Protein backbone atom coordinates (compact mmCIF):
# COMPACT_ATOMS: atom_id res chain seq x y z
CA UNK A 1 0.00 0.00 0.00
CA UNK A 2 2.82 2.37 1.01
CA UNK A 3 4.81 1.40 -2.10
CA UNK A 4 1.80 2.13 -4.34
CA UNK A 5 1.27 5.47 -2.64
CA UNK A 6 4.92 6.57 -2.98
CA UNK A 7 4.97 5.47 -6.64
CA UNK A 8 1.78 7.45 -7.23
CA UNK A 9 3.33 10.54 -5.54
CA UNK A 10 6.53 10.30 -7.63
CA UNK A 11 4.53 9.92 -10.84
CA UNK A 12 2.27 12.85 -9.94
CA UNK A 13 5.25 15.13 -9.16
CA UNK A 14 7.11 13.99 -12.29
CA UNK A 15 4.12 14.54 -14.58
CA UNK A 16 3.34 17.96 -13.06
CA UNK A 17 6.99 19.02 -13.51
CA UNK A 18 6.97 17.89 -17.12
CA UNK A 19 3.62 19.54 -17.83
CA UNK A 20 4.96 22.81 -16.41
CA UNK A 21 8.32 22.48 -18.13
CA UNK A 22 6.73 21.82 -21.51
CA UNK A 23 5.07 25.23 -21.36
CA UNK A 24 6.63 28.22 -23.06
CA UNK A 25 9.76 29.39 -21.27
CA UNK A 26 11.31 32.85 -21.47
CA UNK A 27 14.43 34.39 -22.98
CA UNK A 28 17.55 36.09 -21.64
CA UNK A 29 18.87 39.53 -22.53
CA UNK A 30 22.13 41.13 -21.42
CA UNK A 31 23.60 44.59 -21.72
CA UNK A 32 25.08 47.65 -20.07
CA UNK A 33 22.89 49.99 -18.07
CA UNK A 34 22.75 53.55 -19.35
CA UNK A 35 19.71 54.67 -17.32
CA UNK A 36 17.96 53.46 -14.18
CA UNK A 37 14.78 55.04 -12.82
CA UNK A 38 13.98 53.52 -9.44
CA UNK A 39 10.72 55.45 -9.04
CA UNK A 40 9.33 54.45 -12.42
CA UNK A 41 10.86 51.01 -12.05
CA UNK A 42 12.59 51.00 -15.41
CA UNK A 43 16.07 50.20 -16.61
CA UNK A 44 17.54 51.09 -20.02
CA UNK A 45 20.29 48.94 -21.45
CA UNK A 46 22.48 48.83 -24.54
CA UNK A 47 22.31 45.19 -25.56
CA UNK A 48 25.39 43.04 -26.02
CA UNK A 49 25.20 42.23 -29.74
CA UNK A 50 27.66 39.33 -29.73
CA UNK A 51 26.09 37.54 -26.75
CA UNK A 52 29.60 36.62 -25.67
CA UNK A 53 30.25 37.51 -22.04
CA UNK A 54 34.06 37.26 -22.46
CA UNK A 55 34.15 39.60 -25.44
CA UNK A 56 31.00 41.73 -25.39
CA UNK A 57 29.95 44.15 -28.12
CA UNK A 58 27.71 46.94 -26.85
CA UNK A 59 26.56 48.33 -30.17
CA UNK A 60 22.89 47.36 -30.43
CA UNK A 61 20.55 50.26 -31.11
CA UNK A 62 18.05 51.50 -30.08
CA UNK A 63 18.56 50.98 -26.34
CA UNK A 64 16.13 48.52 -24.76
CA UNK A 65 13.87 49.53 -21.85
CA UNK A 66 12.74 46.96 -19.28
CA UNK A 67 10.38 47.19 -16.34
CA UNK A 68 12.21 45.81 -13.32
CA UNK A 69 10.59 42.88 -11.42
CA UNK A 70 7.91 43.89 -8.93
CA UNK A 71 8.97 41.15 -6.53
CA UNK A 72 12.11 42.42 -4.69
CA UNK A 73 13.34 38.82 -4.34
CA UNK A 74 13.72 38.65 -8.13
CA UNK A 75 15.78 41.84 -8.29
CA UNK A 76 19.51 41.85 -7.64
CA UNK A 77 21.62 44.81 -6.57
CA UNK A 78 20.61 48.15 -8.11
CA UNK A 79 22.69 48.93 -11.20
CA UNK A 80 25.18 51.76 -11.64
CA UNK A 81 24.63 53.75 -14.83
CA UNK A 82 27.28 54.84 -17.31
CA UNK A 83 27.60 55.92 -20.92
CA UNK A 84 31.03 54.55 -21.80
CA UNK A 85 30.54 51.71 -24.24
CA UNK A 86 34.06 50.94 -25.38
CA UNK A 87 37.62 51.93 -24.60
CA UNK A 88 39.72 51.14 -27.66
CA UNK A 89 43.26 51.53 -26.34
CA UNK A 90 44.82 50.35 -29.62
CA UNK A 91 43.29 53.14 -31.70
CA UNK A 92 43.12 55.70 -28.83
CA UNK A 93 39.36 55.97 -29.16
CA UNK A 94 36.51 56.02 -26.68
CA UNK A 95 32.91 55.24 -27.62
CA UNK A 96 30.15 56.84 -25.55
CA UNK A 97 26.36 56.79 -25.77
CA UNK A 98 25.13 60.30 -26.51
CA UNK A 99 21.77 60.91 -24.84
CA UNK A 100 20.97 63.93 -27.03
CA UNK A 101 21.22 62.06 -30.34
CA UNK A 102 20.42 58.63 -28.85
CA UNK A 103 23.38 57.28 -30.76
CA UNK A 104 27.01 56.36 -30.24
CA UNK A 105 29.80 58.87 -30.47
CA UNK A 106 33.39 57.88 -31.15
CA UNK A 107 35.96 60.29 -29.70
CA UNK A 108 39.67 60.15 -30.45
CA UNK A 109 41.72 60.98 -27.38
CA UNK A 110 45.30 61.94 -26.66
CA UNK A 111 47.00 59.44 -24.40
CA UNK A 112 48.65 60.84 -21.29
CA UNK A 113 49.50 57.63 -19.42
CA UNK A 114 48.53 53.99 -19.60
CA UNK A 115 49.17 51.14 -17.18
CA UNK A 116 48.31 47.63 -18.24
CA UNK A 117 47.62 44.41 -16.38
CA UNK A 118 46.07 46.18 -13.41
CA UNK A 119 43.95 43.73 -11.42
CA UNK A 120 40.91 44.85 -9.41
CA UNK A 121 42.88 44.62 -6.15
CA UNK A 122 45.92 46.54 -7.37
CA UNK A 123 46.83 49.39 -4.97
CA UNK A 124 46.43 51.84 -7.86
CA UNK A 125 42.71 51.06 -8.08
CA UNK A 126 41.93 49.56 -4.66
CA UNK A 127 41.99 51.35 -1.32
CA UNK A 128 43.23 48.71 1.15
CA UNK A 129 42.75 50.95 4.20
CA UNK A 130 39.09 51.51 3.43
CA UNK A 131 38.76 48.00 1.93
CA UNK A 132 36.90 49.21 -1.14
CA UNK A 133 37.69 50.07 -4.77
CA UNK A 134 38.76 53.63 -5.55
CA UNK A 135 36.31 55.81 -7.44
CA UNK A 136 36.74 56.09 -11.18
CA UNK A 137 36.63 57.97 -13.52
CA UNK A 138 38.79 60.74 -12.06
CA UNK A 139 38.03 63.93 -13.95
CA UNK A 140 40.53 66.77 -13.77
CA UNK A 141 38.79 69.78 -15.31
CA UNK A 142 41.84 72.01 -14.87
CA UNK A 143 44.33 69.73 -16.60
CA UNK A 144 41.62 68.51 -19.01
CA UNK A 145 42.35 64.86 -18.29
CA UNK A 146 40.22 61.86 -17.42
CA UNK A 147 41.50 58.71 -15.71
CA UNK A 148 39.54 55.58 -16.52
CA UNK A 149 39.90 52.10 -15.10
CA UNK A 150 38.57 49.18 -17.10
CA UNK A 151 38.30 46.08 -14.90
CA UNK A 152 37.62 43.76 -17.86
CA UNK A 153 40.54 45.07 -19.92
CA UNK A 154 42.74 45.45 -16.78
CA UNK A 155 43.92 48.83 -17.95
CA UNK A 156 44.28 52.18 -16.18
CA UNK A 157 44.30 55.01 -18.71
CA UNK A 158 44.71 58.75 -18.34
CA UNK A 159 43.58 60.58 -21.44
CA UNK A 160 43.26 64.14 -22.59
CA UNK A 161 40.18 65.48 -24.39
CA UNK A 162 39.12 68.82 -25.91
CA UNK A 163 37.51 71.32 -23.49
CA UNK A 164 33.97 70.88 -24.91
CA UNK A 165 33.68 67.34 -23.49
CA UNK A 166 34.20 68.46 -19.88
CA UNK A 167 30.68 69.89 -19.69
CA UNK A 168 29.24 66.38 -19.99
CA UNK A 169 28.15 64.54 -16.82
CA UNK A 170 30.79 62.46 -15.03
CA UNK A 171 29.11 59.15 -15.77
CA UNK A 172 29.66 59.75 -19.50
CA UNK A 173 33.14 58.30 -18.95
CA UNK A 174 32.08 55.49 -16.68
CA UNK A 175 30.84 52.08 -17.77
CA UNK A 176 27.42 51.08 -16.52
CA UNK A 177 26.87 47.77 -14.76
CA UNK A 178 26.36 44.72 -16.89
CA UNK A 179 22.96 43.18 -16.23
CA UNK A 180 21.22 39.98 -17.28
CA UNK A 181 17.46 39.84 -17.59
CA UNK A 182 15.09 36.92 -17.84
CA UNK A 183 11.84 37.86 -19.56
CA UNK A 184 8.79 36.28 -21.10
CA UNK A 185 6.99 39.40 -22.20
CA UNK A 186 8.98 42.02 -24.19
CA UNK A 187 10.07 44.88 -21.94
CA UNK A 188 9.09 43.20 -18.65
CA UNK A 189 11.86 41.61 -16.62
CA UNK A 190 10.83 38.60 -14.55
CA UNK A 191 14.28 38.22 -12.99
CA UNK A 192 17.07 40.77 -12.89
CA UNK A 193 20.72 39.96 -12.22
CA UNK A 194 23.44 42.56 -11.77
CA UNK A 195 26.34 40.63 -13.31
CA UNK A 196 28.95 43.27 -12.39
CA UNK A 197 28.02 43.20 -8.70
CA UNK A 198 27.29 39.51 -8.24
CA UNK A 199 30.11 37.36 -7.01
CA UNK A 200 28.80 33.81 -6.65
CA UNK A 201 32.07 32.70 -5.02
CA UNK A 202 31.89 35.30 -2.24
CA UNK A 203 30.54 34.10 1.11
Amino acid sequence: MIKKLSLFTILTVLSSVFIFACGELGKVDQGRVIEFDKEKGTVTIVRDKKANSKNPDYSYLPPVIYEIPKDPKEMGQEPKTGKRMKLDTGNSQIVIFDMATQNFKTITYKLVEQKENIGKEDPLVYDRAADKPKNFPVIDREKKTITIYSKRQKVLTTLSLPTEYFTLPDNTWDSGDEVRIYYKEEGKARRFMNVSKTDIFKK
Partner: protein
Amino acid sequence: MCKLWTKLTGVMVMASFVVSDIALAAGEKASPLVIVADTRRLTGWEAWFANLYNESHVYFTLLTVITIPVVGVILGLIADLVMSHIGIDLKSRELAEH
Protein backbone atom coordinates in the same frame (compact mmCIF):
# COMPACT_ATOMS: atom_id res chain seq x y z
CA MET B 1 16.57 11.69 34.24
CA CYS B 2 19.41 13.84 35.50
CA LYS B 3 21.35 13.19 32.27
CA LEU B 4 18.36 14.23 30.20
CA TRP B 5 18.06 17.52 32.07
CA THR B 6 21.78 18.18 31.64
CA LYS B 7 21.48 17.59 27.87
CA LEU B 8 18.41 19.81 27.59
CA THR B 9 20.14 22.62 29.49
CA GLY B 10 23.19 22.28 27.22
CA VAL B 11 21.03 22.50 24.11
CA MET B 12 19.28 25.61 25.47
CA VAL B 13 22.62 27.33 26.24
CA MET B 14 23.89 26.55 22.73
CA ALA B 15 20.63 27.78 21.21
CA SER B 16 21.00 31.09 23.08
CA PHE B 17 24.46 31.53 21.49
CA VAL B 18 23.03 30.83 18.04
CA VAL B 19 20.26 33.40 18.57
CA SER B 20 22.77 36.06 19.60
CA ASP B 21 24.89 35.22 16.52
CA ILE B 22 21.86 35.75 14.31
CA ALA B 23 21.21 39.09 16.00
CA LEU B 24 24.82 40.15 15.39
CA ALA B 25 24.65 39.08 11.78
CA ALA B 26 21.53 41.18 11.24
CA GLY B 27 23.48 44.25 10.18
CA GLU B 28 23.04 46.22 7.01
CA LYS B 29 20.37 44.76 4.77
CA ALA B 30 22.00 43.15 1.76
CA SER B 31 20.41 42.73 -1.67
CA PRO B 32 19.32 39.19 -2.42
CA LEU B 33 21.64 37.11 -4.55
CA VAL B 34 19.77 36.83 -7.85
CA ILE B 35 21.23 34.65 -10.57
CA VAL B 36 20.01 34.39 -14.15
CA ALA B 37 21.46 31.58 -16.24
CA ASP B 38 22.85 32.82 -19.55
CA THR B 39 20.92 30.99 -22.26
CA ARG B 40 21.66 33.35 -25.13
CA ARG B 41 24.00 30.99 -26.93
CA LEU B 42 22.34 27.76 -25.87
CA THR B 43 19.98 25.68 -27.97
CA GLY B 44 17.88 22.55 -27.57
CA TRP B 45 17.67 20.78 -24.24
CA GLU B 46 20.48 22.88 -22.73
CA ALA B 47 18.53 26.10 -23.35
CA TRP B 48 15.36 24.46 -22.07
CA PHE B 49 17.00 23.20 -18.86
CA ALA B 50 18.76 26.53 -18.13
CA ASN B 51 15.56 28.46 -18.84
CA LEU B 52 13.70 26.15 -16.47
CA TYR B 53 16.17 27.30 -13.78
CA ASN B 54 15.38 30.93 -14.65
CA GLU B 55 11.65 30.27 -14.57
CA SER B 56 11.36 28.38 -11.29
CA HIS B 57 14.02 27.13 -8.88
CA VAL B 58 11.49 24.75 -7.31
CA TYR B 59 10.67 22.97 -10.58
CA PHE B 60 14.36 22.94 -11.55
CA THR B 61 15.25 21.29 -8.22
CA LEU B 62 12.42 18.76 -8.46
CA LEU B 63 13.37 17.79 -11.99
CA THR B 64 17.08 17.47 -11.06
CA VAL B 65 16.31 15.38 -7.96
CA ILE B 66 14.07 13.05 -9.98
CA THR B 67 16.35 12.87 -13.04
CA ILE B 68 19.56 11.88 -11.21
CA PRO B 69 18.33 8.52 -9.78
CA VAL B 70 16.48 7.70 -13.03
CA VAL B 71 19.69 8.29 -15.05
CA GLY B 72 21.59 6.25 -12.41
CA VAL B 73 19.25 3.26 -12.85
CA ILE B 74 19.49 3.49 -16.66
CA LEU B 75 23.31 3.62 -16.56
CA GLY B 76 23.36 0.69 -14.08
CA LEU B 77 21.17 -1.42 -16.36
CA ILE B 78 23.38 -0.60 -19.37
CA ALA B 79 26.50 -1.53 -17.39
CA ASP B 80 24.81 -4.82 -16.35
CA LEU B 81 24.02 -5.58 -19.97
CA VAL B 82 27.54 -4.83 -21.18
CA MET B 83 29.13 -6.91 -18.42
CA SER B 84 26.90 -9.92 -19.08
CA HIS B 85 27.81 -9.67 -22.78
CA ILE B 86 31.57 -9.73 -22.07
CA GLY B 87 31.21 -12.69 -19.77
CA ILE B 88 31.24 -11.16 -16.30
CA ASP B 89 28.61 -12.94 -14.27
CA LEU B 90 27.51 -10.91 -11.27
CA LYS B 91 24.30 -12.84 -10.61
CA SER B 92 25.90 -15.97 -9.13
CA ARG B 93 29.17 -16.76 -7.42
CA GLU B 94 31.20 -19.81 -6.69
CA LEU B 95 33.05 -20.00 -3.43
CA ALA B 96 36.71 -20.66 -4.00
CA GLU B 97 37.43 -21.65 -0.41
CA HIS B 98 37.14 -25.31 0.57
